[in-house]
């Protein structure tokens, strides 16, 4: 095994010290001279015509510098389906619709001005159920679209599912549902925008996609009649991401519009209620799944159809099926697969990307169904999974090429670490679920690339300009470790700049758990070029061939002769301060050799895939329905842990987010209105909810990853829900098919299983009029 000096080490996150001492600046902390504060007025109805907007009182309020409505601005279309506008005109389609915006000298004045804007609405019938919204007579959310069903291509059929159904010895079919949950970033959304006198735009924005956002804003400027100007996107420190910042939001365009209108910098930051209501959620799903196997337990087919509540406008939620295809066609070996997903407009909120991007929703259905099928076939659940486990070299029906695969080892690890075979106490149960996720980039756009520029100064300190986005997960640190490893330096010698489109090369964004793999390979490629330059210079100065030199401990020295050595800084100064001097700089744009999905959705989406298995032991209280987690094991095959401490952080954080998804979190929506836009009523887990957790890390050393690494950002929250659902079934014999698995749901299922009705009365034992509750 190679001895690395920084890769594989538990190096603290590069900016942790600044964060621990309160020095770090987030969007909330940024101020520029002359800055105005923007505030948004939201709709009063989930569906209504805008009859009239009177902004006169707001405009007259002292301290107000600008008020805009949808009628004052050019048409800027944004969103996946281009059906969204920064400020709505004509009608509103959800409670989070932005109707007007104000810029004022301080936040209090801005808020007061918003209250002074008078909007007259004519309420329209609303539609809040995606199934009902599909009917011919349902109110149309977008009239011009003629139907509430979006034109999305989500349909695939590999092999012959109908034939396979005929041959299957055992078949199970069931419905599952998941609802809205939200990212709950502690640092809420915000942007700060200003124009210079030549109409070039600078915008600080909470974004995970600086390069793509830049393009979106260029398009917006175009629509505003501002052509051929520069747009600079600067990403401040993010107070969390989790996918919430993978799309551009109305508030960013509003900040830009207000900044242009007032000729001043304008900052908009969300308060917590706005963060709950006006940011986009995880995509809810209604899933029907059928799976079948032969007598030996080999999967023959998987047949899934989904209805997705698309909400009022379209963001990434409508594209989650493209990722859901991954577990649907490739989690376990299934030769025949059929999948169809319909996205339907409603007057609810809309979804975008959230950690896992559809994978948790699909895996909940698939892995719950796997346990059901194993039971139907009379095969042990663990053995059933082993029979169908993916292996290295497998090519799935979707043409995903599995290179490294530690799925079987992860299953073993969970069985062992969870002690799955130990005798159960009453009310106790164990369950497991596997995951597959992209681990080597994901070609969802035409480019999956990331650029890196490295420059070395005269003192042996290195600047790495990366397109990658850090949001706390540690992209900066991992990149520094990779560069330090390659150049024989310490991590402290590396300064990673990851924030500014004027300075950093293009990157498609921090999504799909791609950053370590893609940005890491990009940084490694640039570092190798620097190393080649160093060796070239050193071979002359030390009079030793380049291949007999090593970079180590901030020096370059001969392998054979210890005395032929020079400190890195000294070497650089010699190279620079001489005739025809040179300084060392290099760049590398790495675009992995993965494939876009074709029209039939076949294509090797990622260079490699991350696998994992989660196992959980629960105790269910049959009186209250409360599920207590006694033990949790999350085993992942990560290729190589470049920084085990940060990797564990991703797993622990992902698992806790997944447990919340499984048991406690939900946006309670009543006719389109969020009823729990606060931390008191939206049940996010706290420190008291931490469960005993083990996170075994498998290193299969992927040939394509930097130092063998694969991605880990999302896998932690993918199989948590089905693992817990399977454990609940093992404990008390009830299968919960709807998330979250709240005590109310679990208890209702237990009661139903026992034949006890809502009043607690056993069937056949009702003493006449005792039960007055309507079923």
């Amino acid at each position, binding site marked *: *095994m190679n001895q690395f000096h920084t890769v594989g080490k*538990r190096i*603290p*996150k590069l900016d*942790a*010290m600044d*964060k*621990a*001492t*309160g*020095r*770090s*600046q*987030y969007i*909330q*902390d940024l101020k520029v001279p002359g800055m105005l504060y923007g505030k948004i007025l939201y709709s009063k109805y989930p569906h209504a015509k805008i009859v009239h907007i009177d902004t006169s009182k707001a405009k007259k309020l002292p301290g107000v510098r600008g008020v805009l409505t949808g009628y004052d601005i050019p048409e800027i279309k944004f969103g996946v389906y281009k059906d969204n506008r920064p400020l709505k005109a004509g009608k509103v389609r959800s409670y989070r619709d932005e109707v007007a915006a104000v810029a004022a000298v301080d936040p209090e004045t801005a808020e007061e001005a918003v209250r002074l804007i008078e909007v007259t609405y004519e309420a329209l019938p609303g539609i809040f159920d995606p199934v009902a919204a599909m009917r011919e007579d349902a109110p149309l959310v977008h009239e011009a679209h003629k139907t509430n069903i979006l034109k999305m291509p989500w349909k695939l059929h590999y092999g012959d599912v109908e034939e396979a159904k005929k041959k299957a010895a055992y078949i199970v079919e069931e419905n599952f549902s998941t609802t809205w949950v939200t*990212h*709950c*970033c*502690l*640092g*809420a959304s915000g942007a700060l925008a200003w124009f210079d006198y030549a109409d070039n735009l600078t915008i600080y924005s909470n974004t995970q996609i600086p390069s793509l956002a830049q393009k979106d804003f260029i398009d917006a400027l175009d629509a505003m009649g501002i052509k051929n100007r520069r747009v600079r996107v600067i990403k401040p*420190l993010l*107070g*969390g*991401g989790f996918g919430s910042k993978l799309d551009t939001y109305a508030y960013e365009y509003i900040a830009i519009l207000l900044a242009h209108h007032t000729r001043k910098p304008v900052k908009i930051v969300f308060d*917590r209620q706005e963060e709950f209501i006006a940011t986009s959620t995880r995509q809810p799903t209604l899933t029907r799944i059928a799976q079948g196997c032969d007598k030996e337990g080999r999967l023959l087919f998987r047949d899934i159809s989904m209805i997705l509540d698309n909400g009022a406008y379209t963001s990434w939620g409508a594209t989650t099926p493209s990722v859901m295809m991954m577990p649907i066609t490739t989690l376990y070996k299934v030769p025949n697969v059929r999948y169809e997903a319909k996205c339907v407009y409603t007057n609810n909120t809309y979804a975008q990307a959230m950690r896992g991007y559809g994978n948790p929703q699909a895996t909940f259905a698939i892995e719950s169904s796997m346990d059901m099928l194993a039971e139907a076939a009379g095969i042990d659940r663990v053995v059933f999974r082993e029979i169908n486990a993916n292996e290295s070299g497998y090519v799935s029906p979707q043409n995903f090429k599995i290179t490294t695969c*530690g799925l079987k*080892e992860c299953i073993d*690890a969970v069985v062992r*670490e969870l002690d799955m075979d130990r005798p159960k106490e009453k009310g106790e149960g164990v369950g497991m679920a596997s995951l597959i996720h992209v681990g080597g980039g994901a070609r969802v756009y035409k480019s999956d690339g990331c650029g890196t520029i490295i420059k070395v100064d005269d003192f042996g300190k290195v600047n790495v300009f990366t397109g990658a986005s850090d*949001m*706390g*997960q*540690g992209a900066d640190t991992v990149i520094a470790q990779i560069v330090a490893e390659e150049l024989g330096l310490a991590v402290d010698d590396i300064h990673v700049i990851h924030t500014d489109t004027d300075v950093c090369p293009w990157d498609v964004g921090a999504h799909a758990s791609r950053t370590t793999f893609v940005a890491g390979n990009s940084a490694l490629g640039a570092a190798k070029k620097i190393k080649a330059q160093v060796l070239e210079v050193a071979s002359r100065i030390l009079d030793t061939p380049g291949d007999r030199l090593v970079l180590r401990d901030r020096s370059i020295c001969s392998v054979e002769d210890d005395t032929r050595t020079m400190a890195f800084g000294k070497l650089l100064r010699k190279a620079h301060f001489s005739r025809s001097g040179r300084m060392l700089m290099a760049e590398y744009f790495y675009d992995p050799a993965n494939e876009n999905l074709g029209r039939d959705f076949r294509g090797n989406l990622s260079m490699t895939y991350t696998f994992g298995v989660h196992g959980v032991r629960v105790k269910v209280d049959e009186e209250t329905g409360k599920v207590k987690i006694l033990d949790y094991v999350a085993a992942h*095959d990560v290729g190589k842990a470049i920084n085990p*401490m*940060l990797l*564990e*952080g991703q797993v*622990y*954080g992902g*698992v*806790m*987010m997944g447990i919340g998804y499984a048991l406690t979190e939900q946006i309670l929506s009543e006719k389109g209105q969020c009823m729990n836009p*606060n*931390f*008191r009523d939206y049940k996010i887990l*706290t*420190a*008291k909810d*931490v469960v*005993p*957790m*083990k*996170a075994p*890390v*498998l*290193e299969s*050393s992927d040939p394509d990853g930097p130092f063998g690494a694969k991605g880990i950002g999302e896998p932690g929250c993918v199989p948590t829900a089905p693992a817990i659902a399977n454990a609940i079934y093992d404990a008390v014999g009830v299968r919960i098919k709807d998330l979250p698995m709240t005590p109310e749901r679990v208890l209702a299922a237990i009661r139903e299983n026992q034949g006890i009705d809502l009043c607690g009365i056993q069937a056949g034992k009702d003493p006449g009029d005792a039960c007055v509750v309507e079923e």
Partner: protein
Amino acid sequence: MERVVSFVLNGSEMQLRIQDHWTLLHLLREELGLLGTKEGCGSGECGACTVLVDGMAVNSCLYLAAEIEGKTVRTIEGLASPEGTLHPIQKAFVEQGGIQCGFCSPGMILSAKALLDENPAAGEDEIKEAIAGNICRCTGYVQIIESIRSVSSTAQEKVKVVAWQADEED
């Protein structure tokens, strides 16, 4: 309405004219430029605004600035020594993965300090109780609890993490 308050802030005597309706959070961030204390929710539910008043962890977003008369306030900026040496809790958070995005960190660290100042031998359950009012979305709390435990004076076993190599001959 205005008033003058006298208090000690991060070791320095202060005397300020404040508005009656200001929260301590507003006073710190907007008036004194101490941006380390964060606003996460504005309603005392997330703990990002935690500061220490007379050694006790309080949600500064709900604490009226007028109430600090005669009290001692410590924010995250005042935790490291004047020479720049990190407090052991800060050092532990940095070295043990207790910080990811960092937004909850100032509040979390101060809640931990309030606990350990009062109960230096705090165990895992007491730690969880003390930081129950500090929400973190990134870390899953595990490495935060580990960081605090490592500073607690009882000798603690770290939460077990198992890692191994799949194939030695790579």
